[in-house]
């Protein structure tokens, strides 16, 4: 059932490269599901939870996002929770893989399993999140596309690395073999290549072994507007109702 809820905006503060905004709301979204917030524009804004609190959730948004302009105590009308989120089902070994810019929706999963590994890729060192942001129990692999820090990306690349640098792909394959579940948050165009990596690491991955969050415009949230349709192996699907979390092997 699609709910319409009034959320109370609590605060906004910078957590570069994002801003963190927090809301109190009776029915907060689960990881991978989303809220559509009426922030005054012609379309509602998609908010994925970056953390769940006792009485609501926080989201991480770009610096000039309209949510950063709200005054504490403001009432914000929201639709949701909407969509199908991550399905972890008692996973104990969880691998998270994200581009730094798209990482926030995976953050609620950092403590969703007893052992969590996180692979974060950014174009360069300056765009990587600070390692102290993550729980000390998280195994962290940092990847840069220019080799300025951590392993050399991109995640899918099998090209030989220059001297003094190591490609991340062999380590990613190891982690996929280790994990009971893998959750991805990357641009949609990369998912077919990442699905191929999953297939290379696991002979017959179970359904939902590797899940991918599709981040796209979802103006209506209920499958009416057809703007969020994405191609899958089973025909076009609505990201807002069939997803936004999909089995990566279907993308």
């Amino acid at each position, binding site marked *: 059932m699609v709910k319409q809820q009034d959320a109370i905006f609590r605060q906004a503060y910078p957590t570069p490269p994002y801003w963190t905004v927090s809301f109190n709301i009776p029915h907060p979204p689960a990881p991978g599901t989303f809220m559509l917030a009426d922030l005054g524009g*012609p379309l509602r804004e998609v908010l994925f939870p970056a953390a769940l609190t006792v009485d609501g959730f926080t989201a991480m948004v770009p610096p000039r996002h309209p949510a950063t302009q709200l005054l504490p105590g403001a009432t914000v009308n929201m639709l949701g929770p909407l969509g199908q989120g991550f399905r972890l089902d008692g996973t104990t070994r969880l691998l998270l893989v994200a581009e730094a810019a798209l990482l926030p929706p995976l953050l609620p999963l950092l403590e969703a399993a007893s052992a969590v590994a996180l692979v974060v890729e950014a174009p360069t060192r300056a765009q990587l999140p600070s390692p102290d942001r993550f729980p000390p129990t998280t195994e962290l692999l940092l990847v840069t596309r220019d080799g300025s820090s951590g392993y050399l990306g991109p995640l899918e690349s099998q090209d030989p690395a220059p001297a003094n640098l190591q490609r991340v792909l062999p380590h990613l394959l190891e982690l996929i073999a280790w994990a009971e579940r893998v959750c991805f948050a990357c641009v949609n165009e990369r998912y077919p290549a990442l699905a191929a990596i999953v297939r290379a690491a696991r002979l017959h991955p179970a359904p939902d072994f590797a899940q991918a969050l599709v981040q796209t415009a979802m103006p*209506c949230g209920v499958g009416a507007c*057809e*703007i969020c349709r994405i191609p899958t192996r089973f*025909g076009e699907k609505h990201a807002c109702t069939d997803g936004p979390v999909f089995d990566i092997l279907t993308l």
Partner: protein
Amino acid sequence: MIELAPRHKFGLPIATPVMPAAGTFGYGDTYHDLVDLRLLGALVTNPVSLNPREAAHGTRIAVRGEHFIAHTGLPNPGLSQVIRRHRQTWERLPIPVIVHLIATTPAETAQAAGQLAGLPNVLGIELGLIDNITPQRALSLLDAARAEGDLPVIVRVPFGNVDTLAPQLADGGADALTFTAPPRAVLPIADAPEENATSCQYLRGRLYGPALLPLLLNTLARWRSKLPIPIIACGGIATPQDAIACLELGATAIQVDALLWRDPPLLQRIAGELAKFDASTELDETPTDVVV
């Protein structure tokens, strides 16, 4: 009851003059949690073509201020699949269904109209035309829809073609006209990649937003009383007052377009306000003056 097709043998009576516009409300019950369908006059489905169509590639939405452009490519699984998936829902709905057909060729339009004839609770067809269509082509599509089916045919007139198409379609047998399809427009895509910041990317698509309302009212004011068939107003209607203005300027009913994505209950709020507004006494006898 409000009659949308007074010249048709069966007619198309609706209880209230409020409908969602094609492409905004899905095929049936997607908004049933948020909108009380019983308060609406009819459901206008998302655009359907005889054959399946895939979604447009790339960016599909661009926002600027209070307006936005949407470019979906009118994806749909094809009429047969739509009927198979939604026939039972349509039958259960408490309001009549008007199927919005993407009119491509006369042969396909005729075939589609034939498939829709006799479906339970499908009481009308709204034909969607391409923007630069000629009057001859529009009339041939209208003829095809009328020849093969027995349903009333509403034609949604392209934004820039009202003057050339409306009188001919009215004379050519359309049961009602929808004024208008959203205009085509171009906006820069806000989230263009930083490395391409100097070469901005643009999106062409359908324009939505409150600025469409004065354009709609202008069209209504120019055409009221000049057409022998009902006009359904569509474009930029965002409040009950907007809807009342459309009715005062001659519209028989209104459609709420993509603005309802932000505020789905807007439909029932408009319906509620219009129920208080006695359109019959205020409109029929003393049309509102338009001061220019």
